[in-house]
Every structure is written in structure tokens, then in C-alpha cells.
């Protein structure tokens, strides 16, 4: 008698179909297996955009549904990237080192190999010792688990401290900004163990894989699309039932939820940690496509951009978050990549590289003032009109 979850939520089905269609079309037009109409570098941009859409879904869960304006979720995104980056860099360097050492007459010892890898990776920060945190870097399985565990644990501890003290509203936003800033500053140090401001690089090369980047970029596009689909489905399921009711209740009236007997803090912690894990997975898929990660990626401003995407796309609507992230980040790439033609005004020439941020800021203000439901709100309006026509009202 209960209909399936998908049947009760047609928008989820529509989204998943569109995502599948998008992936298929891009694949057919790609250089790797298709006609070559879309360049490999643009495939990577699209794949990265899908990852940004995934973290936007997480942001919408925590902000749009639970009302917690976290301005630190890019810290989790970045940490996820670092965790997978450690394995990618270690393993690739190891293969190179083993290869070059095999030319020598005496076979190298285990210690010599490790030493050579250490020199290769940490030479730029004047060290050759492996820091403790690289202990699992030789195991893909363990490092994949750390992608979720490290950011998840950070979110759990940070969230527990913050929510237990009943820090809410703008104070919590400031606290999350402080968290991401502190993490970025720490990682900037050369002795943080993650190569300071050099970050981890060469991540686009999968160790032991001889396939061309044309193909690898497609694999990552597919993986990103799959992750976005799964994340979207999970998020839609989480908010569809009573849990969704409770967190929306926390957003609209925290005291009422508390006096109904729900432990508000536990719910906040659960949703904070869950979204941190989703953000981390998105980051772990993003940085192999970007090829490099450094501490500048988790600067406080990154998390603020994330909030802007979700606000423009429409809070409290999962598809709104996806639209906002895709639309704004692609537009941003276009404007700041120097592709947008300059706008001559006679007395002054508008260079979009400089003026894009102003445009973004203005559109954020405009959306906040005139369309608080964002682009997603427009879609709702169209959907309502259509259903009214159908019922003949």
C-alpha cells in the first residue's frame, strides 16, 4: 500500500534522468570515446562541476533544510581531496622511484625505496622523512576510508563542541569560518606534513593506469555523476520523512522541537556530520580532476561562495542547489578564464576577470532581495502553473 520512495517524489526521478542524459550526451561528444566535440579539459570542468553540485546538495541539507549556515564545509571538501591525494601522490611516486632504481645494478632495499619516495615528495619543503599522517598512504583502501573518516571525525568533534554549547545563528557561521581558516593556516605551514603551500600535485595521473587523460577524464565524469546521483537520492530520502520534518522544524522553531522531546543538538550533529562526509566525497572526486590541491582551496571565501551558489539556486530545494552550483561555477569559469569578451563602454572597458566578482555580488544581493527562493523558486512556480492547467483550474 505504501508507494515506493521514487514514485512519491517525481522530482527525484526527473533529476536522475536528466543527470543520466547529461552524462550520456557528454560521453558521446567526448574526445575519449565519442566524436571529440567536447575537449578533454572541458570534460574535466564538467566533472568538477558535478562535484561542486554534490557539495551544494550537502550545503542545502545543512543550511536550506536544517537552517544551520555553515561557512566551513569547504574544509571537509578539501580534507577529502587531501586524503585521496596522499595515496595518488605516494603511489605514483613509488612507481617512478621503483622504475628508476631498477636500472641500478644492486636491487634497492625497502628502506631505500621509501627514502627515495620521501625525498621526491617532501624535497620541496626541505625534508625527506615521512610524517606520521602518511602512515596509510600506501594503501588505497585505507586512504579511501580516511576520505570519509577524517572530515567526518572533525565535523563530529567540532559540531559536538559547538552545538552542545548552543551556539546558533551568525555565531555558528563565524565559528565555522574560523575552523576552515585555522585548518588552511595550519596546512600552509611546511611542517604540517602535507607540503605546505605547494599542496599535493600531479593528482590527475592515476598510478599504474596507462590510459590517456581523454579516457581518465571520462571515468571521473562518470564517477562524479554517479556520486551526485547517489548523494541527491540520499539527501532526498533523508528530508522526505519525519527526519526531514524534524530538521525543518529546527530551522523554523528550535524551541518547539526541543519541547516536543527531540534532542535538537543530536539532530544538528547528525546532519552536520553527514553533510561533512558528503562534502568530503565530493572533494575526493574533485581534486583528481583538478590535478592539484593546496591550502588556498579551503580558504574561508570558498565556503562563502558555496553559500552564495545555494542561495542563488534556491535554498530548501535540492535541485535548486544543483542548478545554483552548476550555473554560477560554470559562469565563473567562463568569466574568470578570460573567455568572456571585454565590454567596451567608450570611456572604460569592463574586463570581466576583474568585474565578475562585482557581478556575482550584485546578483547575490538581487536574489536575496527580490527572489529569496532563488532559481529553484522559479521552477516551482512553473511546475505549479503546469499542474493547475492540467487540473483545469
Amino acid at each position: 500500500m505504501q508507494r515506493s520512495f521514487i514514485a512519491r517524489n517525481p522530482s527525484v526521478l526527473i533529476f536522475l534522468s536528466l543527470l543520466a542524459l547529461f552524462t550520456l550526451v557528454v560521453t558521446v561528444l567526448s574526445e575519449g570515446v565519442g566524436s571529440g566535440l567536447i575537449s578533454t579539459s572541458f570534460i574535466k570542468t564538467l566533472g568538477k562541476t558535478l562535484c561542486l553540485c554534490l557539495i551544494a546538495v550537502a550545503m542545502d541539507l545543512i543550511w536550506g533544510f536544517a537552517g544551520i549556515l555553515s561557512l566551513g564545509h569547504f574544509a571537509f571538501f578539501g580534507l577529502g581531496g587531501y586524503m585521496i591525494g596522499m595515496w595518488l601522490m605516494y603511489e605514483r611516486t613509488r612507481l617512478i622511484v621503483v622504475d628508476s632504481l631498477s636500472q641500478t645494478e644492486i636491487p634497492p632495499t625497502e628502506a631505500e625505496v621509501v627514502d627515495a619516495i620521501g625525498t621526491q615528495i617532501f624535497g620541496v619543503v626541505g625534508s625527506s622523512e615521512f610524517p606520521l599522517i602518511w602512515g596509510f598512504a600506501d594503501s588505497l583502501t585505507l586512504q579511501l576510508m580516511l576520505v570519509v573518516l577524517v572530515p567526518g571525525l572533525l565535523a563530529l568533534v567540532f559540531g559536538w563542541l559547538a552545538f552542545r554549547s548552543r551556539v546558533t545563528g551568525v555565531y555558528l557561521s563565524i565559528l565555522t569560518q574560523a575552523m576552515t581558516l585555522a585548518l588552511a593556516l595550519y596546512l600552509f605551514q611546511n611542517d604540517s606534513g602535507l607540503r605546505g603551500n605547494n599542496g599535493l600535485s600531479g593528482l590527475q595521473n592515476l598510478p599504474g593506469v596507462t590510459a590517456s587523460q581523454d579516457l581518465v577524464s571520462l571515468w571521473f565524469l562518470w564517477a562524479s555523476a554517479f556520486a551526485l546521483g547517489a548523494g541527491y537520492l540520499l539527501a532526498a530520502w533523508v528530508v522526505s520523512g519525519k527526519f526531514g520534518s524534524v530538521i525543518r522544524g529546527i530551522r523554523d522553531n528550535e524551541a518547539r522541537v526541543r519541547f516536543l522531546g527531540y534532542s535538537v543538538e543530536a539532530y544538528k550533529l547528525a546532519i552536520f556530520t553527514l553533510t561533512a562526509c558528503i562534502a568530503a566525497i565530493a572533494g575526493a572526486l574533485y581534486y583528481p580532476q583538478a590535478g592539484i590541491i593546496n591550502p588556498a582551496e579551503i580558504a574561508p571565501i570558498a565556503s562563502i561562495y558555496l553559500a552564495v551558489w545555494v542561495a542563488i539556486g534556491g535554498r530548501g530545494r535540492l535541485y535548486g542547489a544543483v542548478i545554483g552550483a552548476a550555473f554560477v561555477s560554470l559562469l565563473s569559469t567562463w568569466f574568470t578564464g578570460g573567455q568572456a569578451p571585454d565590454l567596451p563602454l567608450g570611456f572604460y572597458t569592463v574586463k570581466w576577470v576583474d568585474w565578475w566578482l562585482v557581478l556575482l555580488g550584485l546578483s547575490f544581493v538581487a536574489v536575496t532581495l527580490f527572489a529569496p527562493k532563488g532559481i529553484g523558486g522559479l521552477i516551482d512556480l512553473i511546475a505549479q502553473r503546469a499542474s493547475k492547467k492540467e487540473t483545469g483550474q
Partner: protein
Amino acid sequence: MSMLLEVSGVSVSFDGFKAINNLSFNIGSAELRAIIGPNGAGKTTFMDIVTGKTRPDEGRVIWGEKSVSLLKMSEAQIAQSGVGRKFQKPTVFEDQTVQENLLVALKKPRGWLAVLGYRPTVEDLGRVDALAEEIGLTDQLSRLAGELSHGQKQWLEIGMLLAQEPRLLLVDEPAAGMTVTERQHTTDILVEAAKTRAVVVVEHDMEFVRRLNCKVTVLHEGSVLAEGSLDHVTANQDVIDVYLGR
């Protein structure tokens, strides 16, 4: 008579101002009680203490047959143990339907994991229908709570409290801003609820208290000034001086 809630010797002060001063009183397990008093008499602070929002400086608040102290419990734990609270301003989840509001309030496991997997059973939906009928919102179930009138929101909130199946219901000025017919309906709901549980109504409005037809406690400057039937307390000279005389 066995006592459900015993408040004894409770005092609390904010920045030197004694909001509650050595307050003691008891409520039985199936009793309707009205608390009246002028502004600043400590009525809302009393509710804050019982529901765990405010910690008193001294005194005891003892609850139920097992005589547990409410002072060491969190708001959520107190609510789960059977204390329901209605705010002065109607507080419902405006963005959700009446049915969703009632479903969230239903007495069910409150942990987030249990809630994540919860889907309403036929029985639960039946219970919601029965509650909606009790508060007179049967034909509003699928409407958003934000679209309801002021009075309907107040009833919905009372319905949500009843859904929790509390043993003690604390109601803060339920009749404020209601029309005469709405007041009558509210009185009916509260009197009906008090047949199976304790209901404490904090109220300003004498006419409404008279309709409730129950024992009245008069608070003044954070302690009990008089207690008894409405006619009894309104005849009390102290009460006339501090409250009615002005």
C-alpha cells in the same frame, strides 16, 4: 491525592531581581489548574523552570510516582518524561502541513536514527485523524500550518501537545487574541484534556478562567498569594489589593 508535580522552596533571580521567591505548590495527576497573577508575577518563569529552560538557584521540583528531580534533566528529557508545553505565541511548523505537524509530535521514539527510518503506519495516521477531530481541524489536515488562522494555530499546537501524550500540560495564555466562539472551543479542548491528565493554564483573562471552572493559584512577586476557587481568591483582600484592585 497523589501528586504529579511538587514544586518546593524554589527561588530564582536574574541580575538580582527575584523572579521566583520561595515558590511551593503541588499539582495532582488529573487536575485542571489555572495560574493567574499580574505581569512579572513569575508565571512564565515558573513554566521555564518546570520544562528545564531555566535552572533555579535553590529548591526542588519533583515529578511523578518515582519522585525524580526534573532539575537534572534536559528540556528534551523532561518533554519525553511527559511534560508538554504550549507557548504564548502559537508555535507550530508553518512550513509543514497540519498532518506533518501532528505526526512529528506523536509519541514515538525520539532518537535521530529511529526517526530516520520511520514511516507512518496506518495506525499512526488514524491517531492523527482522531487528534485532528479533537481539535476541530479534520478538514485542514493537508493545509500548511502557516495558512491557518490564529485560533486554529493555537488549537494545532494544543493538538501537538496532546499527540505527545503528556501527563502534565502547561498552557500559556491560550485564549489571547481569540474570538468568543474560539474561546469556547479552547475551553472545551482543555477541560476534556484535563480528564485524563493534569493541565495547568496560565491566564490573564478572568472571564476565561471562570469558564474553566477549576482551582486557581494566584502568583505575586514570585510566590503563591492565594489558592482556591475563583470566587474564594477574588474575595481575598490581598488578591484584590495586588491584582484586581488596580
